[in-house]
């Protein structure tokens, strides 16, 4: 469980790693892929994923003193990333420009990559795009990031029971879509 430090306490980063000068770069190096992949899977667009990933790290650096072990840095970053992403998707929904998963070139363009995996990937991504933002986030945080339901509930400011319900919904819909071949 993450703890928010009261103002004025020693920033955790100094306790966590005495070699401070390299810490920011190390944080980026260790967590970039997780954050980027989550945001790409959530938005379906590489430029959104790129912008939001940068935004996530900048926001995190801005609030480093609110993080300290035993909270996991990755979970903390994923929380910031998820909030930033949900904000963006909700804003888009309000302005009626719903993002489409139109930037799915990753699988198809890998040279020599198996066609069936590429096709299945496309189907899965398309099916994922049809889920609600929260169900999508729950599925990705659990399957892609291996977070526990407890951690996901904390991260989304929800309850474990609600997370279970969203997972139920996500799995049911994805299985239906996959069976139907989307």
């Amino acid at each position, binding site marked *: 469980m993450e703890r928010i430090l009261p103002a004025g306490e020693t920033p955790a980063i100094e306790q966590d790693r005495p*070699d*401070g*000068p*390299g*810490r*920011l*770069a*190390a944080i*980026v*190096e*260790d967590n*970039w*892929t997780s954050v*980027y*992949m989550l945001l*790409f899977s959530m938005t379906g667009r*590489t430029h959104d*994923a*790129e912008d939001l*990933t*940068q935004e996530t*790290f*900048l926001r995190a*650096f*801005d609030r*480093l003193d609110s993080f300290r072990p035993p909270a996991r840095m990755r979970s903390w970053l994923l929380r910031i990333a998820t909030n930033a992403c949900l904000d963006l998707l909700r804003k888009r929904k309000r302005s009626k420009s719903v993002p489409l998963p139109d*930037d*799915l*070139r*990753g*699988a198809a*363009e*890998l040279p*020599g*990559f*198996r066609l*069936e*995996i590429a096709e*299945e*990937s496309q189907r*899965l*991504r398309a099916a994922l795009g049809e889920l609600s933002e929260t169900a999508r986030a729950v*599925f990705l945080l*659990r*399957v*892609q990031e*291996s977070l*526990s*339901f407890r951690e996901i509930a904390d991260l989304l400011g929800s309850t474990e029971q609600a997370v*279970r*319900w969203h*997972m*139920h919904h996500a*799995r*049911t819909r*994805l*299985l239906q879509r*996959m069976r139907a071949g989307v």
Partner: protein
Amino acid sequence: MKCRRVQRWLLQAENPRLDSRTPAEIAEHVRACPDCRFLKRQLTKLEEAWRLVPGPAGSEEAKRAFLDRLARSASPVARSARLPRRRVLQWCAASAASLLALGTGTWLVVSEREARAADGLVDQLVDWNLDLTLAQSESERNRVYARQAERFRSALSTASLPEEQRSLAQELLENGSWLVTHQDPAAEADRFGSLSEELLQLAQSAGARGNARRMNKLLRQYNRVLESGIDLNVQRAEASNALDGKRRAKLDRLALRDADHLQQLASLWEAAPGAARKEIERAVGLHRDRVRKASQKKRKGMKAEG
């Protein structure tokens, strides 16, 4: 227990694979009920399929660009007044590249060490399962079980394992407990068939992530399971006089799995680098042998009937 309740449990489970946290009545039902077992398999496959979905090209490039900006100037961090700490700016400017290398190196060493420890435990558990199935008598199985079970349980409770490895290790531990109380070659072959499926899926995931070492290791385990866990038990089952309809159905299911696995192995072979193809070719050979033997047997049966 009703299927509806079990299926709801599976759809809401943190881990749809059965492990030690699965309530006993659910686990028992899933093992006995083909529909619920099918759903469990579909859910596991869905997650594996998602893990095989490749990321978009350009993530690494974007990271490098961001790190360069961090190292080169204070501008990305200082772009807003939200960053009051001068220290942050100094950190960015101070030899990020060398410390980045140090951080990355440490991370890689730790990850590699964890992965090896996990491989070691799973390897030992696979061996243990195979030793159990190879043991001919109940007393021998009890001895093999008692010698290692406690040590594995304790290793599993303290080891730091990636989730997919933990789940597999847990399943192997439970399979060991099952093997000590059941001596039924067809059912044992069926269980090793499910295990081979999981190992193959994990090998595919490792291959898709470009981890050839891990893929090879998993395929070596897969091949051992094919040879000693499945083939041997199929031969035993066929040689026994206890091959009723239910047991025959289990063996037929294994034969269907052969075709499916051959297809998956062929795809894996296409995508694998040359050095990593040896174990795949061995697995394909083992499957082909089985298919050949099965069709010879079928032909003989048809001749005898004719």
